């Protein structure tokens, strides 16, 4: 087993464990902290996949912004902290079955795709100027200019929408 495989397995176990804790924890702040651990695990996976830029973005955006926003919402809706009853609804067993069946289906169908079998290394060498290519692709009209500008419109709509929703006075 190579070093990369060992690191992958450790990270995978920690990420999945954190993910399970997120959906199982009673204390929501603990769940949010576990979520941060899962985000960090995904960032490590990005590093293993040689997408360093995305790893940095993952930490800046998910841990530095979204997770803070979530912790914040938990603190604002403080009643949830006092919940002592079960944290799951009545159909939790059904949800578990659905999730398990879906996992089985995905793994089964992955085995059916011959193109994915035995891929252990990148098809081509990873270019060193990925970030540059990415930056150019965003503003090149022949590539991803539309998603780039749409992203800004989406963010604008999200900003306006959430201000309208949350700014109403009782």
């Amino acid at each position: 087993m190579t070093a990369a495989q060992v690191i992958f397995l450790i990270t995978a176990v920690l990420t999945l464990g954190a993910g399970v804790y997120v959906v199982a924890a009673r204390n929501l702040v603990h769940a949010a902290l576990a979520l941060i651990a899962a985000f960090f695990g995904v960032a490590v996976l990005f590093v293993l996949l040689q997408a360093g830029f995305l790893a940095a973005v993952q930490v800046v955006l998910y841990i530095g912004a979204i997770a803070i926003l979530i912790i914040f919402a938990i603190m604002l809706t403080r009643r949830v902290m006092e919940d002592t009853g079960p944290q799951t609804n009545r159909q939790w067993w059904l949800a578990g079955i659905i999730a398990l069946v879906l996992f089985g289906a995905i793994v089964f169908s992955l085995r059916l795709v011959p193109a994915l079998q035995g891929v252990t290394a990148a098809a081509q060498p990873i270019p060193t100027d990925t970030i540059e290519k990415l930056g150019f692709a965003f503003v090149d009209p022949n590539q991803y200019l539309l998603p780039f500008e749409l992203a800004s419109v989406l963010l604008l709509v999200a900003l306006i929408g959430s201000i309208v929703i949350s700014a109403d006075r009782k």
Partner: protein
Amino acid sequence: MLNEWTFIGLFLLMGAIFPGVPILLQSLVLGPKKNNPVKNSPYECGIETVGDTWVQFKVQYYIFGLVFVVFDVETIFLFPFAVAFDQVRLFMVVEVVIFILILAGGLVYAWRKGALEWV
């Protein structure tokens, strides 16, 4: 590239060990252990604690977090663009300026709506 990130990973690990050692040294070895309930109670300048720690906070705090997230995402888009700056043409720069101005519109909206006021 993985080599550099190995360095970062080891650095983070070491960064946890370095402050961890003196903390453990103090709490487990050197520090006295004479706890009592009064000493361990929350500190409020000598006055007994009244009520829950979870006092209600204003929703105002959330709005600032919200505006921040939007600008955070925006800046993330601009970083790769900055790295590719030598390749881009003038009209592409104008596209980016439009991108920034759309979001500046959001800031103006929040401002006019009074969401940025601390009330």
